[in-house]
């Protein structure tokens, strides 16, 4: 099954355009679900002067919208919220078995991220020389951590 999803962002200034992700909306076959951050502490820390009540009202509106309009068009919602305090991103597609698991996965990715799941292991894919900790400057091998350069092959 393929689902449409959007990320909900709080953007206090339409000029500065700094923002934080606070929720994810996902839509499939007449069902819209929203997963939102339980607490808005991150927003309060990042934007101390923000009107948190206004954020809450906007998020509650999106919650209600999802329930009241299951045929909600996320593209249209994205257009309508452009420049607003709480904005909905243009929708993208995810393919999976259930709306719940996709929503959970997206929420963890966009709103409550853990450390990157699969960063490139630079050291692992770098050649032997780099793994040994050798830094080369202007053609001269300079061992790091007291180790001497060794041939890679």
């Amino acid at each position, binding site marked *: 099954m*393929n689902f*449409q999803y959007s990320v909900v962002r709080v953007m206090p200034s339409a000029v500065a355009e700094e923002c934080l992700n606070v929720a994810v909306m996902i839509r499939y076959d007449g069902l819209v679900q929203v997963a939102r951050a339980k607490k808005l502490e991150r927003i309060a820390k990042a934007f101390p002067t923000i009107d948190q009540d206004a954020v809450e009202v906007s998020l509650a509106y999106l919650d209600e919208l999802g329930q009241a309009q299951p045929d909600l068009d996320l593209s249209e919602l994205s257009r309508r919220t452009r420049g607003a305090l709480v904005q909905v991103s243009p*929708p*993208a*597609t*995810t*393919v*999976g078995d259930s709306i719940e698991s996709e929503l959970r996965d997206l929420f963890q990715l966009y709103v409550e991220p853990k450390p*990157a*799941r*699969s*960063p*490139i292991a*630079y*050291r692992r*894919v*770098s*050649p032997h*020389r*780099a793994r040994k*900790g*050798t*830094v*080369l*400057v*202007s*053609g*001269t*091998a300079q061992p*790091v951590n007291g180790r001497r*350069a060794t*041939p*890679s*092959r």
Partner: protein
Amino acid sequence: MPDSDPISLPRVVLKRHHRAMSGDEGGGSQPQVFEDTDGRFWMVKAPNNPQNGQVLASEFVAASLGRTLSAAIPPAAICELSAELVADVKFADGQPWAAGSGFGSELLQSSPPSYAAGTHEPITNCASAAAVVVIDTLLGSHDGRQARACKDGEGWAVWAVDFGHDIGPGAWSRASLEALASPPALEDGHHWLSLATKEIMGELAETVSNITNEDFAQIVGAIPAEWGPSDDDRVALVAHLVRRREAVVTLIRQRVDA
């Protein structure tokens, strides 16, 4: 194709679209960010990207050789794009993405800046960077070398990105390959070779000279058919690589002996 294949590329299935890449982040092929079924993130070029299918073939050959030479090129893969996943994905002019096989380069997730000589020093992966120079020369670069710089301990690891204009400026053919002159020098726009010791260069010369004609044929033969090089162009590409291998090895050895 198994990931353990030493010279070709793995195949991954994409399950989620994230976003378009814009400006210098993306380029003329208008790649987009996707996630595969294992949670890895890829910068993916579409099979019907606005440049040409052969841009993907060039990327494929460069990435495959990159594995062989331990070059500073992000891991790459053939990315399977289902029709349902790309149904709403469009190019800037509104044309839809085609389903099928795209080329994917693993996303450098720490948002690394573009490499700038003098700013991102010292380079910690000099041998891998030198291997990129060798690949650009072997294929024949038709564009400046783009790279990203990732903080790596006390220095920076450089990662070369976008080989779409190696081999040819987008499209290439037997005629264009046969018209290319032998490389007069190693294509080292960033002077990465100045950081490579004679030992590194000697090892590179040895590794390149050990790539067999059959290795080249295997790599070229593994380019997905939908990316377009005809059988005749593939034969010409193998001949091109064989010809330039000798020239590249000579250029490297001249540098070692200098």
